[in-house]
């Protein structure tokens, strides 16, 4: 490249078009991730068939409810900031983060340690443990990255970065969070509900 005047041509990208492009990019990324989680789900059916392990149903119901409620709150936060309601945005985002962390405590902290498939607690259910830990682990990794993303968004919002005319960062983090919830909407029945429960535990 020669060192010439760097003047972009007339007709750059309008903010409306930029927003469209950003949204499309985000959704394409989520499409890709859908294939990842779809593959994981397919592996679950290939290996477990119409069976599943005995898992704590109350725990399962609780963490699922928490994630759904967290989706409600981040939606609330997104609507709030699009209407310049910074206080509500901060409050709702904070609650979302809290619920996300509680989800991780519930799954990684509790389920992982108490599931009857855990060899450390005397379960030795091979493939049931493997798939359970893999599915919840991959999902939890995405919950964690979602929480971090929301943390960044909350921080920037606190500094006054977002408002009704500059909200895409919030929208993107919110859509990512909803996607993580969406994955769990399929993983929860696949792990806790579908098929006949076999093996140790009650």
């Amino acid at each position, binding site marked *: 490249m020669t060192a010439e005047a760097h003047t972009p041509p007339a007709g750059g990208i309008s903010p*409306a*078009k930029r927003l*469209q492009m950003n*949204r*499309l990019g985000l*959704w394409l990324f989520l499409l890709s991730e859908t294939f990842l989680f779809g593959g994981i789900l397919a592996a679950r059916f290939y290996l477990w068939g*119409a069976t*599943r392990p005995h898992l704590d*149903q109350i725990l399962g*119901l609780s963490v*699922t*409810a928490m994630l*759904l*409620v967290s*989706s*409600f709150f981040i*939606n*609330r936060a997104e*609507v*709030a900031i*699009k*209407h*310049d*309601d910074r206080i509500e945005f901060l409050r709702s985002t904070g609650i979302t983060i809290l619920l996300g962390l509680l989800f991780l405590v519930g799954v990684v902290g509790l389920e992982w340690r108490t599931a009857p498939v855990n060899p450390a607690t005397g379960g030795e259910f091979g493939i049931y443990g493997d798939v359970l830990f893999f599915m919840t682990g991959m999902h939890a990794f995405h919950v964690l990255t979602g929480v971090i993303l929301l943390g960044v968004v909350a921080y920037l919002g606190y500094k006054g970065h977002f408002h*009704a*005319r500059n909200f895409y960062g919030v929208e993107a983090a*919110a*859509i990512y969070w*909803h*996607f993580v*919830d*969406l994955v769990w*909407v*399929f993983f*929860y*029945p696949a792990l*806790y*509900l*579908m*098929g*006949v*429960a076999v093996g140790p535990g009650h």
Partner: protein
Amino acid sequence: MSAPDPTKKKRLFRRGLIVLIALLILEVLDYYTAQLLNGSVTILFVLALINAALIAYYYMHITTLFSEEGGH
């Protein structure tokens, strides 16, 4: 972007809450399908798809992807 409108905001808050209630109802239906219908994979899949559609449409506003087709 039009000026923020407080009544529209309240309407959207309320809509979000209604969607949440629907999602929680679906979760309860899920649970009882497992208990009473032997965890029928088909029914649970259908419930999950409905759940997913609600989230994608109302929370993720997937339709904004297809609106405002730019310039040709």
